[in-house]
């Protein structure tokens, strides 16, 4: 499981304050602790921070880079941010994200390929979030096709079949699971499939419980990457246990400890 740490997000008050006040220590600490807890990469999102998004994201990315060599995913819907930050950021990086329609892919794919960056492709097009599994699969396949044409290596492409909050869209979790199961058999090796786990439980109660149950359901359906909170120990334990049960790692009595030994920055 490729773990992308979600904690460096300006929607968290502490992170927003750090960005606005340019407090490096908070960013360094969150970068290190997430990697130590098993994150393979870090998602960076300036959220609702005051100030110019390009400047803020540049600062956030460069500051995170001071603390770790792990891949940094620039999480912004703005092309202006991606096109400025991605080429200038040293070390491994990812673009989070592009939509599936051709005009978007025609911009984002060259940016990814030219900069050796990973790219997250959302199965959303101009018409919005798909209602069913089939449309998600169709858009996922579309992204994969265009990525291959553009020369993006399959290791650098992540398909995100878009999870919505369960209180708002109760049928969607099941559709996402169906889409994962269909996408994962689409090619050999299978495409890398990612979700932003916390979206599922936004504004719900028992958020951690909802997140970790869906995570293992999604792992079982073929999820190979997730943007989540690696500092949530129960979530990580569930993830690790599911990997054992899916035969991805060999059991031993210290299996929780063993998994944490293998997590190293930048490694999948």
């Amino acid at each position, binding site marked *: 499981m490729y773990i992308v740490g979600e904690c460096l997000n300006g929607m968290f008050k502490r992170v927003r304050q750090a960005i606005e006040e340019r407090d490096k220590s908070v960013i360094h600490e969150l970068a290190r602790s997430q990697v130590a807890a098993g994150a393979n990469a870090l998602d960076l999102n300036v959220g609702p921070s005051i100030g110019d998004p390009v400047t803020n994201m540049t600062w956030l990315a460069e500051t995170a880079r001071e603390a770790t060599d792990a891949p940094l995913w620039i999480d912004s819907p703005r092309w202006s941010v991606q096109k400025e930050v991605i080429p200038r950021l040293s070390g491994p990086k990812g673009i989070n994200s592009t939509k599936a329609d051709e005009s978007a892919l025609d911009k984002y794919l060259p940016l990814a390929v030219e900069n050796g960056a990973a790219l997250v492709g959302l199965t959303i097009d101009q018409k919005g979030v798909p209602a069913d599994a089939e449309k998600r699969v169709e858009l996922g396949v579309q992204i994969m096709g265009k990525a291959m044409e553009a020369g993006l290596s399959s290791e650098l492409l992540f398909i995100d079949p878009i999870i919505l909050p369960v209180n708002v869209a109760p049928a969607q979790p099941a559709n996402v699971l169906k889409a994962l199961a269909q996408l994962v058999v689409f090619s050999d090796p299978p495409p890398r499939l990612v979700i932003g786990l916390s979206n599922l439980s936004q504004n719900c109660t028992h958020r951690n419980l909802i997140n970790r149950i869906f995570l293992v359901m999604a792992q079982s359906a073929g999820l190979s990457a997730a943007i989540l909170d690696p500092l949530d120990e129960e979530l990580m334990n569930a993830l690790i246990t599911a990997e054992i049960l899916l035969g991805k790692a060999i059991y031993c009595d210290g299996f929780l400890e063993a998994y944490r030994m*293998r997590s190293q920055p930048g490694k999948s």
Partner: protein
Amino acid sequence: MESTDTAQKWASAVNHLTIGATAAQGGTRTKTVTVGGAKCVPWLAYEGDVGCRPVVALEIWDSGADNWPQELRAQYGGAMNDPAAWARKGEELGADLICLKLMGTHPEMGNRGADEAAAAVRSVLAATGLPLIVLGCGIDEKDNEILPKCCEAARGENCLFGMIRQKNYRTLVAASLADGHKVLAESPLDINIAKQVNILAHDIGYPLENLVIFPTTAAMGYGFEYVYSIMERGRLAGLGGDPLLRQPVLCDVGFEAWRAKEAQASEAELPGYGPASERGPLWETITATNYLQAGADILVLRHPVAVAQAKEAIETLHGAAK
């Protein structure tokens, strides 16, 4: 028509591990051996580097080998009563290492104490320049009593000491850390326990890269396939990135092969099976070469013929991999 490239890309490789230390490194060995490094399944060179040559260790005992099968006693004669002489013979035969088993310390085979065991280690270190494997008698309490002194006697020589087990590992790990030795970790044909022993050693400060895995060995006809399947699963997991299964593997072939009736029985007991003098060496050789296919990095052998044949097989396999 183009055929699909079936080569697998492995995320990881078997650890490199060195046994022995020359004068420049603080020891007195004339050479060291380095094993491991494979970045492919055994010998599948088109997938990646096949790694270092597997090595052959000659098994010698500090005492008590008078019950060894006749064919082996015929080979070594009086040298079997003197580990120093026996070690020199091993060097002459072209072994890459000596594997000294301190069976004389076994409560039922002499019950020698720590001082005698350490003296045996010293005498072997003085007699040969080959790197050394030192194994206890297999009884936990006794091993804990004798191995620390042996580690101390061999300080600086970077030996491979064994064995640690799930229920008994602290003493030998501590002594190996103090005196700079590699450690052989034993598990009873159980890959889950193999990982767990490594975790336990790691938890008390022993580096994973300094461990060698001993999954227990079975001779041809006596469980070889099961050990093969464990070694295969372990190797695949290690190549896939599991840091607890990336260690090189040791196979204790001589001891197991010579227990077989095919190796030991007289021609009267097994009519039609061929000359007794050939069966033992053959059983040992075939067991050894088959373990090379399973990914064995260190073969512990007894008979000169097995040593020679195993070395030839290694050269052939390694040479073909270029």
